[in-house]
C-alpha cells in the first residue's frame, strides 16, 4: 500500500518543535472546550476519568483510588448493566477498555461505538459503521482528544467522530482489506498524533504502525515492522522477499514515556506463521518490543522476546512502564509478560535487559543469549510428526492487559499453562501463510504476581479452570480485579492473592476492567460478552 512508502519526518528538531507548539496552540484555542481532554490532561489523568486504553500512558492499569478496598470490598454493589445490541449476528463481545471522560463512557465492539452515561448507563449515542468485511474478532476501543473520538474498523478504516453527538468527522483507509489486513486497535493519542496499528496474519503481509493527524487523519509517519534490504535488522532475514512479507502486526495499543518522548510497542508474529524455513534468522522486528520516537516513528531500540518464532507467540503484550530500583539504583523500567511464557524487565531508556525469567513453566528454549533473549530450541519448532510444546498457540498470556502496582511492586498477569502438539502441514520449500498449526490439549489458568526486582513469582493463584486469559486492574485499595474461568469477576488481595470478592457475570470477563470516581463514589466496570457491568461503592 502507498502508505508504506512514507518516510519519517526528518525536519530539524528546532523547526519541528516550533511546528508542534504552534499546532498544540491552535488545537487548544480552536478545539478544546472547557473540561475537554487536552494533551496536558492526558499526561495527568484525573481519578474521575479513564481517558486512555490503559488509563494513562504507562500501561500500569493501576488506580490510586482506595474507597473500594480489601476491607470493604464485600459492600460493593451493582450500579448498572448495559447490553451492547448491534442488530447483527457478528461478534459483539466487548473486548474494548471503556474510556471515561467528563462522566461519559465510550466503548466499542467491531463496527460499533457507544457513548453512555457513566453514572446510569443511559445511552447518549450509538454509532454504527457499514462494514465491507475484515476479521471481526474484536475491537480494543477508542482514543479521545478534545471533542474528537477515534476508532478503527475491521475493514481497515480509522474513523473520527464528534464526541458530543457521535457524528462522523472523517474516515481514512489505514490498511488493505484485499491483503487480509484488518484493524482492531484502540488508537493512542500522543500530542497531535493519533497512533494506529494494524492486524492480520492470514497472509504474508508486513506489519506497521502509523501516526495520523487528529484533524484530518492524514498520515504523519509510518514505522515498518520489517526492514528494507540494507537497513538495520535486514541481516536477520534471508532475502528481500521474506522481509517484505514478514508480518509483525501491531495489534495492541502502545505505551508512552513523555519525558523520553518514546512510544513502546510489542509486535506480532513473523510470516509465514508456523512454517518458518523460508525465513531463517531472527526476523527482526517481529516479536519485538520496540521504542519509537513519537514524533518521527524512528526506531530508538529493540528487544526481541521470541527470535524466529514459529508458534504464533505475538510479543504484543503491553510493555508496562514504571520507575523502580535495581541494585539500589533508580531506573526507568519497562516490563512485559510475553505470550511465550517469559517475563522481561528492560531499561526503557536503552532497551538493555535487566531480568529474564519464566512466569509459567515452558519447554521451548535452549537458554538465553547475551542480550537476555530466549534461544528457541530447534527441536521444539513445529515438526512433520509433531513436537510437544508449552505454551500452546494461545500462549501463556495473550492480548488481555496486565497490571503493575507501584504499592506492591508486583506485576500481575493472568496466565495459562498449556501444552499442544505443533505440526508442519506444508513442507514446501517456500511455505506461505500458515503452513502448519498446533493441536491443543491440556491447559490450566492462574494469576501470577511477579516481583519485578527478581523476576520471580511472589504469589500464584491457580484458577479452578483451564484458562487464565482475563484483563487485570490493580488499585491502591490493595486489590487486583480480574476474571476467572468460572465466569466470575473477582477481586484478589494484591499482596497475598487471597480471593476476596466475586460476582458471576454469566459469561467470561472479556476486557480490561477500569475504575474511576464520580460524586465521591468509586466505580469498577468490566465486560462479559456483550454486556458491561458497573459496580460501585456508594457514598452515603
Amino acid at each position, binding site marked *: 500500500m502507498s502508505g508504506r512508502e512514507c518516510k519519517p519526518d526528518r525536519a530539524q528538531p528546532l523547526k519541528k518543535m516550533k511546528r508542534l507548539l504552534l499546532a498544540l496552540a491552535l488545537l487548544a484555542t480552536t478545539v478544546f472546550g472547557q473540561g475537554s481532554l487536552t494533551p496536558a490532561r492526558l499526561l495527568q489523568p484525573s481519578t474521575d476519568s479513564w481517558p486512555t486504553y490503559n488509563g494513562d500512558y504507562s500501561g500500569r492499569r493501576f488506580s490510586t483510588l482506595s474507597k473500594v478496598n480489601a476491607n470493604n470490598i464485600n459492600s460493593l454493589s451493582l450500579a448498572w448493566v448495559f447490553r451492547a445490541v448491534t442488530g447483527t449476528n457478528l461478534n459483539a463481545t466487548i473486548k474494548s477498555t471503556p474510556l471515561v471522560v467528563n462522566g461519559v463512557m465510550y466503548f466499542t465492539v467491531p463496527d460499533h461505538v457507544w457513548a453512555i452515561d457513566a453514572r446510569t448507563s443511559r445511552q447518549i449515542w450509538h454509532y454504527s459503521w457499514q462494514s465491507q468485511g475484515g476479521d471481526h474478532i474484536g475491537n480494543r476501543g477508542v482514543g479521545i482528544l478534545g471533542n474528537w473520538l477515534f476508532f478503527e474498523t475491521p475493514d481497515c478504516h480509522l474513523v473520527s467522530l464528534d464526541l458530543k453527538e457521535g457524528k462522523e468527522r472523517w474516515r481514512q483507509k489505514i490498511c488493505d482489506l484485499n491483503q487480509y489486513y484488518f484493524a482492531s486497535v484502540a488508537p493512542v493519542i500522543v500530542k497531535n498524533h493519533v497512533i494506529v496499528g494494524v492486524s492480520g496474519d492470514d497472509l504474508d503481509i508486513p506489519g506497521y504502525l502509523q501516526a495520523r493527524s487528529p484533524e484530518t487523519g492524514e498520515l504523519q509517519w509510518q514505522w515498518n515492522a520489517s526492514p528494507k534490504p540494507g537497513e538495520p535488522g535486514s541481516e536477520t532475514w534471508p532475502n528481500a522477499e521474506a522481509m517484505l512479507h514478514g508480518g509483525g502486526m501491531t495489534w495492541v495499543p502502545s505505551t508512552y514515556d513523555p519525558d523520553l518522548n518514546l512510544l513502546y510497542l510489542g509486535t506480532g508474529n513473523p510470516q509465514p506463521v508456523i512454517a518458518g524455513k523460508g525465513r531463517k534468522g531472527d526476523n527482526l522486528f517481529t516479536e519485538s518490543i520496540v521504542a519509537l520516537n513519537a514524533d518521527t516513528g524512528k526506531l530508538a531500540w529493540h528487544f526481541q522476546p521470541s527470535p524466529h518464532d514459529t508458534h504464533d507467540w505475538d510479543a504484543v503484550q503491553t510493555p508496562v512502564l514504571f520507575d523502580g530500583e535495581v541494585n539500589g539504583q533508580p531506573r526507568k523500567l519497562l516490563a512485559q509478560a510475553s505470550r511465550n511464557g517469559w517475563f522481561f524487565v528492560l531499561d526503557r531508556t536503552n532497551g538493555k535487559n535487566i531480568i529474564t525469567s519464566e512466569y509459567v513453566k515452558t519447554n521451548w528454549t535452549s537458554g538465553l543469549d547475551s542480550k537476555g533473549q530466549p534461544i528457541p530450541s530447534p527441536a521444539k519448532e513445529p515438526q512433520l510428526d509433531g513436537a510437544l510444546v508449552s505454551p500452546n498457540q494461545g500462549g501463556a498470556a495473550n492480548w488481555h492487559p496486565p497490571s503493575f502496582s507501584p504499592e506492591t511492586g508486583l506485576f500481575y498477569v493472568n496466565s495459562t499453562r498449556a501444552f499442544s*502438539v505443533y505440526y508442519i502441514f506444508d513442507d514446501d520449500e517456500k511455505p506461505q501463510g500458515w503452513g502448519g498449526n498446533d493441536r491443543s490439549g491440556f491447559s490450566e489458568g492462574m494469576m501470577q504476581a511477579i516481583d519485578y526486582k527478581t523476576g520471580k513469582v511472589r504469589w500464584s493463584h491457580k484458577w479452578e479452570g483451564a484458562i487464565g486469559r482475563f484483563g487485570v486492574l490493580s488499585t491502591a485499595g490493595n486489590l487486583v480485579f480480574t476474571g476467572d474461568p468460572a465466569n466470575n469477576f473477582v477481586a484478589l488481595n494484591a499482596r497475598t492473592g487471597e480471593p476476596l470478592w466475586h460476582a458471576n457475570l454469566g459469561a467470561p470477563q472479556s476486557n480490561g476492567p477500569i475504575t474511576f470516581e464520580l460524586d465521591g463514589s468509586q466505580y469498577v466496570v468490566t465486560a462479559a460478552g456483550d454486556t458491561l457491568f458497573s459496580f460501585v461503592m456508594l457514598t452515603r
Partner: protein
Amino acid sequence: MKILLLLMVMRLGVQAPAGQRAPVLAAPGPGDKQTVDAAAADRGKTTYLAECITCHGPKARGTDMGADLIRSLLVLRDRFGNELLPFLRKGHPTQSKTPSAALTQAQVADLSHFLKQRFADTLRSSPTYRVQDVLTGNVKAGAEYFNGAGKCNSCHSPTGDLAGIGKKYDPPTLQQRFLFPQRTKPITITVTPGSGPSVSGTLVRIDDFNVSLRDSSGEYRAWKRTRDLKIDRSDPLATHVELLDRYTDKNMHDVVAYLESLK
C-alpha cells in the same frame, strides 16, 4: 467500493455468480471475496498447466522466472478475472507462445478460481492441511517406555483397555488422545464442612467461592467455600497431566508407534 467493483465487472463483462455480491462479514478478508468454484478451478488448472506453470511454479508461488501469484496484489484484488483479464489482454508471456490476449474471458475466470484455490491452500483454515506421518517412533522403545519409565502399565494394558487401539484410531488421532486423553471418568471430590459429616460425589462445579457435587443418590449438594471447608479431590487424568512435563518428543513418537501396533 462495491459500486466501483460492479462498474469494473460490467465494463469487463465478467459476471460475479449470483450470491457473491452481498458482503460476507463473518470471516477474515474482504466481504466481497471470491468463493472458489471447484469445477472452474479444475478447468483453470488445465490452462495454468498449459500456459503458466513453468514460470510461476506448481503452486503458483513463483520461481526465478516468474512472480509469486499467491502474494500478487493484482491476484488478491481480482474477482472472477476482472483484474486478470485486462492484465492478460495487454500481453504476457505464455508457455505455448499463444498470445495471452487470446485467452477467453471464461478461461481467465477459471484461472482466477484456480489461483484463489491455491491462495486458500495457505490460509490458517486451509482445506489441504493434514497431519502427516507421525509413525516415526520405535515400537520396541515405545513398549519399553510403556512398561518402564512411563509406568503406563500401572493403569493400562495392551490386552485390556488398549486392546485393538491401533485399529480404533488413525495415528494422528492416536497421538492426540494418548497425550491428552478425553475424560471418561469424572473428577470425584469429598467435601468436609467445619461441622457436619463428609459428603462425596462427582464434581459438578468449583471456583474460589463455591463448590457443588452430585452424590451417589443423584442429589445435588452445594457449599460456600470457607476457611474450614475441606475439599479432597481425585482426578483420574492427573497422572497424564504430570507426564506432559516428562515426555520427550522421542517418548511421544515411540509410544504412538507402540500403541499403533496394538491391532
